């Protein structure tokens, strides 16, 4: 009894710390999953936590459940029309692409580790697929906005390419452990058969399971809190069932998620919200447990060859595989380059790395260490740089505006409309017109408005004010339009509220500006161009309206193109929160001490 209490204590504390550390890491652009992984390592036997955890079977179990849930959630959130447009290139990437990646990385592993061809190929296969958890998480970040086609292909690839890697891994393990490892026609037929079963079976199971789940959701009358649980357990059943018959459970749950997410069903919002939280929890738990599993000191002997393998994967295998796979689809070179760079590895390879260990392959724990280092290297190098690379390649769009506070309510009648409530934001479009002339999309009715806690009808009021709560009856697919209407407008380049009273050329020396407006700057930054100074201290993509506080004024990005600041604004009488002020000043001070001259 004491043990289980300890487990609860440690488990929940780790999850809480992960969440808090995650919010801090976003300030520095560190990949979130890396933070969870490192926390797991810190809690483990070489870290201050000192927990001994060496259970590959438990890891495999937890990893399976977590991956199934993450993929199901990914499918739920993928819009069919986005998916359809990229399904062909994504499918090629997920099959031929994985094969090419595995082969090239396998050759590298063969020579770098001095193992047999088959063992080399095993390592190549394990690290061949991109990670759904890492890619989904990366692409949902607000600052990472890509053209729809580009983010869709990356998501679809991550959702679809696991079965191929699983298949390759299992085949290699099978060949290595079998008594007669020579590749005969018979084994080739078997492999081809397994492959078709994995893919075709996974697809069919996904479609069938998805529609079955839909029928269950719409047909059963149960307590509303149970709908998301029904969906989750249905997805897990489907995953395990598909695996049981030799089909790909990963593919099946992703497809099932896609089916359920794109069809009308009851409790849509409840299910989406529940699965959003569940996917987060799964990501945290999976990476924590993977961090716990490894003994960092055991990685030291393999670290050099493993880093070389990671480099071969990132700089040769993945670009070649992407280039060949997408050659027929006429993607512009910079998009191909970006897809190559977003080949994030994550939980899937680590998870697949446990398979040879469980199967008792010789030296499997060494291979596991290699895979681990490759994943870490990918998360650190690619995960950390993906924003900068996107900017350099010019594929990033301006970040989405912050979503205005919105609450949705599922109506039990299921007429295809939800109740949606917004709090009107200052500087929103809705404030610029009278209520009667509000540019509402068709099919939307304003039900009522709450001002200062008092219920008003639309007829009572002439115009909305910031802070009003507006309740509307709207179809769920109109939320984007409503977000635009009630959310704060993107700052215009000539709106002094957004970009400050005056402006400077980005080349103007900071010292002269500081003298003219009496604000503090670090003394060794007087000769720095104001644009460079601002860009270095923002730590984020310079986008119109982003600000840096400096004691009595704020410097603001007024105009930026492709990550380069053109004009800097200044706000002379800013209202800044105390923490924001402290944070910015610390940042500026640190940058002046540590940054290059």
């Amino acid at each position, binding site marked *: 009894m004491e043990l289980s209490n300890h487990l609860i204590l440690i488990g929940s504390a780790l999850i809480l710390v992960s969440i808090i550390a995650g919010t801090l890491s976003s300030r520095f652009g560190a990949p979130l999953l890396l933070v969870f992984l490192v926390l797991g390592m810190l809690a483990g036997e070489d870290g201050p936590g000192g927990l001994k955890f060496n259970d590959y079977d438990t890891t495999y179990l937890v990893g399976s459940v977590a991956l199934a849930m993450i993929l199901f959630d990914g499918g739920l959130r993928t819009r069919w029309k986005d998916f359809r447009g990229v399904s062909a290139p994504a499918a090629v990437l997920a099959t031929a692409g994985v094969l090419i990646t595995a082969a090239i990385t396998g050759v590298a592993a063969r020579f770098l580790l001095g193992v047999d061809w088959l063992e080399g190929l095993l390592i190549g296969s394990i690290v061949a697929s991109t990670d759904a958890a890492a890619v989904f998480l990366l692409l949902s970040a607000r600052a990472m906005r890509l053209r729809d086609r580009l983010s869709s292909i990356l998501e679809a690839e991550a959702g679809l390419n696991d079965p191929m890697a699983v298949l390759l891994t299992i085949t290699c393990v099978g060949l290595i452990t079998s008594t007669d490892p020579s590749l005969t026609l018979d084994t080739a037929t078997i492999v081809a058969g397994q492959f078709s079963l994995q893919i075709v079976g996974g697809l069919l199971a996904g479609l069938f399971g998805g529609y079955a789940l839909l029928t269950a959701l719409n047909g059963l009358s149960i307590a509303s809190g149970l709908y998301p649980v029904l969906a989750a357990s249905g997805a897990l059943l489907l995953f395990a069932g598909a695996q049981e018959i030799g089909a790909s459970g990963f593919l099946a749950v992703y497809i099932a998620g896609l089916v359920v997410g794109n069809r009308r069903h009851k409790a849509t919002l409840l299910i989406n919200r529940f699965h959003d939280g569940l996917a987060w929890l799964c990501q945290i738990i999976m990476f924590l447990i993977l961090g716990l599993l490894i003994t960092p000191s055991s990685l030291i002997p393999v670290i050099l060859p493993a880093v070389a393998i990671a480099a071969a994967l990132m700089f040769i295998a993945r670009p070649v595989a992407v280039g060949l796979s997408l050659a027929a689809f006429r993607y512009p070179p910079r998009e191909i380059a970006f897809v190559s760079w977003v080949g994030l590895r994550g939980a899937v390879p680590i998870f697949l790395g446990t398979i040879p260990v469980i199967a008792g392959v010789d030296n499997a724990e060494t291979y596991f260490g290699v895979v681990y280092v490759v994943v870490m290297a990918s998360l650190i190098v690619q995960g950390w740089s993906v924003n900068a690379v996107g900017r350099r390649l010019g594929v990033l769009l301006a970040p989405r505006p912050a979503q205005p506070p919105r609450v949705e309510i599922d109506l039990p009648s299921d007429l295809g409309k939800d109740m949606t409530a917004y709090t009107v934001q*200052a500087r929103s479009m809705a404030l610029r017109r009278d209520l009667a002339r509000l540019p509402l999309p068709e099919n939307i009715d304003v039900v009522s408005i709450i001002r200062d806690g008092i219920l008003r009808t639309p007829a009572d009021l002439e115009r909305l004010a*910031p802070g009003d709560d507006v309740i509307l009856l709207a179809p769920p697919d109109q939320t984007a339009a409503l977000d635009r209407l009630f959310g704060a407008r993107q700052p215009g380049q*000539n709106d*002094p*509220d957004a970009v400050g*009273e*005056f*402006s*400077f*050329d980005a080349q*103007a020396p900071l010292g*002269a*500006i500081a*003298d*003219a*407006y*009496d604000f503090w700057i670090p003394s060794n930054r007087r000769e720095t161009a104001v644009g460079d100074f601002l860009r270095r201290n923002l730590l984020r993509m310079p986008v119109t309206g982003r600000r840096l506080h400096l004691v*009595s*004024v704020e410097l603001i990005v007024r105009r930026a193109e492709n990550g380069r600041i053109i*004009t*800097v604004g200044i706000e*002379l*009488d800013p209202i800044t929160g105390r923490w924001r002020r402290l944070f910015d000043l610390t940042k500026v001070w640190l940058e002046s001490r540590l940054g290059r001259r």
Partner: protein
Amino acid sequence: MEIRDLLTSDSVIANLRVTSKKQALQELAGAVSRVTDLDERAVFDVLMEREKLGTTGVGNGIAIPHGKLPGLDKLYGMFARMEKPIDFQAIDEQPVDLIFLLLAPESAGADHLKALARVSRLLRDRATCDKLRGTDNAEALYAILSNSADVQAA
């Protein structure tokens, strides 16, 4: 901070006849030197130094040239309405016809910034600008400027 703390009735020019940004700043520096005991050249140099960092043409036909001068004892403003709009290399590339010049003592610090923010808010108000553009009488201009209530931006 009120506009009448910055501006006196004799520092309003109703019809400034100039054709360029440089000429406008020269004329304004001259006008400043006639009401204060500041050196015309020094005022002009300070204003041009500031323009080098980036234009003070803030858009919508407005310019707010400004700078700090030693030997000034208080904030000093001057308003001019151009007879014809001039090119000021403004941020929106539109010609400028309303200029509010503001000079501050070396030590003005926060007051200087507050005054600039106040002037900027004043001239951001479309109705006020329309009124200013519709009058070519110095006293009327002064009345419009000094009677405007401060609508603090949200």
